[in-house]
């Protein structure tokens, strides 16, 4: 597998073309149970708006909209899938995000565990491309922020 193919795994291109949890439902404007974050990558102008729904300590759903490169879009899609399906707690989600950040900053040293990260584990290859780490992180930073606000 070439380096490029290791970056653009099948799974990533799939999520990019068929983004999950895409679209912010208009009627569900922010309540006590949700928080919204807007994040932007100043270099390329990519942006994301992500909303997290929290019930007590449990993150129940994630919705997002945005535009950007395949990595940033796929990452948002994979993250939403992961969090919404697992019914993680706030604390678990924060730990998840921290682990993801660490792996992506590892310059290829750390692999993401598929059992923990699901499809998002396919983003491990990004960590070798330091200029793309920000793209992959965008949604995760947004989720971190959105949960803090919810």
């Amino acid at each position: 597998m070439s380096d490029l193919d290791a970056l653009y795994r099948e799974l990533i291109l799939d999520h990019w073309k068929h983004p999950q949890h895409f679209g912010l439902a208009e009627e569900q404007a922010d309540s006590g149970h949700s928080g919204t974050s807007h994040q932007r990558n100043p270099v390329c102008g990519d942006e994301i708006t992500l909303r997290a729904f929290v019930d007590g300590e449990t993150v129940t759903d994630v919705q997002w909209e945005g535009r950007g490169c395949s990595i940033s879009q796929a990452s948002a899609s994979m993250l939403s899938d992961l969090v919404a399906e697992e019914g993680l707690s706030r604390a678990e989600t924060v730990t998840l995000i921290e682990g993801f950040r660490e792996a992506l900053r590892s310059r290829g040293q750390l692999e993401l565990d598929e059992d923990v990260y699901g499809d998002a584990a396919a983003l491990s290859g990004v960590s070798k491309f330091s200029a793309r780490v920000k793209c992959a992180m965008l949604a995760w930073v947004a989720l971190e922020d959105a949960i803090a606000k919810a």
Partner: protein
Amino acid sequence: MTSPTPTALPALDAAKLREDFPILHQQVNGHPLVYLDSGATSQRPLPVLDAERDFLEHANAAVHRGAHTLAAEATELFEDARATVAGFVGARPEHLVWTSGATMGLNLVAYSIGNASAGAGAPASARLALRPGDEIVTTAIEHHANLLPWQELAARTGAVLRHIPAHDDGTLDMDAAADLIGQRTRIVAFTHVSNVLGIVNPAADLVALARRVGALTVMDACQSAPHLPLDLPALGVDLAVFSGHKMLGPYGVGGLYGRSDVLEAMPPFLTGGSMITTVTLERAEYLPPPQRFEAGTQPIGPAIGLAAAVRYLDAVGLDRIHAHEGMLAERMRAGLAEIPGIRLLGDAPGAERVGLWSFDVEGVHAHDAGQFLDARGIAVRVGHHCAAPLHARYGVTASVRASTALHNTLDDVDALLDAASGIRPYFGV
């Protein structure tokens, strides 16, 4: 393409020039490096690297302030460098102010005018002062460096910022310019060549429009200085800036060219050592230009390196460079236009250009396209290239830009074209 091809001159031998650039001789991701990012920063040929190093190994000393032998030698080399770089743009040494780069040069001008507007400077500075309602005209295709300083100056002074719009083909709307530049216009700031579009703007026409109403002209020559012959006094602009690192020279140095009367009227911007006549604890008096604008230790080594860079450019010949890069641009255009889904930004038929094209790949984000090219050893720039409003004008947030320099060959262009045709298939769009 109306680029002048001086048939009298033999074409330059880019393959031979390549040998002077050590960085080009490497493999990137298993392919020979094809450097098409000179618009961001150029690579340095050996004579530039050597000039700076020789200076540092043999003659380095702080200039202008010492009587010892090294200091005297360094001062001579530094002032010779000023004369050389000034001469490169047709100017005299006293019309060249050293800066740390183009961004700094444009901020210098904007802040100096801001200071004049706040009452600083000599009586002559009053003519530069802006009052509420005065207008600053720039264009819709500027690099942020030639936009934000004017936004800030307008905010500080109450002046109004207006923008000459661009046509869909990337050329400036000169009819609109003629309407916009009126009695209230005090400053007209424009780029000679956009770093996204590559089109050479009609500088002389803009200068004429500004002169008609007595407005000051400020030209961003970053993307023209290394690519075409430039005679700033002949062009008639009042002020112009360029960056060393974009013209085969070092980082950390640039030039601000100014007409005598304009520089004379400008109050100081940065203050500190070496730009004063007398200083007491309470107040200071300032030297005439160019020293007035050169506070603190100047980038001495980089200035000497930049002089070597313009000597290198001059030795090759700016006419030949312009013709060569025009030829590369022509081939690039022809090839890119044929690739399905690629849209060129600023594809104005017959426009004079430098060797630079930006393009959008339908369905593929610029970052992904750039990554794909990089995997084949091709270095291009992706993003908004510090010209976000221009990209918004074209309905995109980012583009891919391939920019050439005198060392690029037709092989480089062909490598780009070959790889570019693979982008959309790879991503399955």
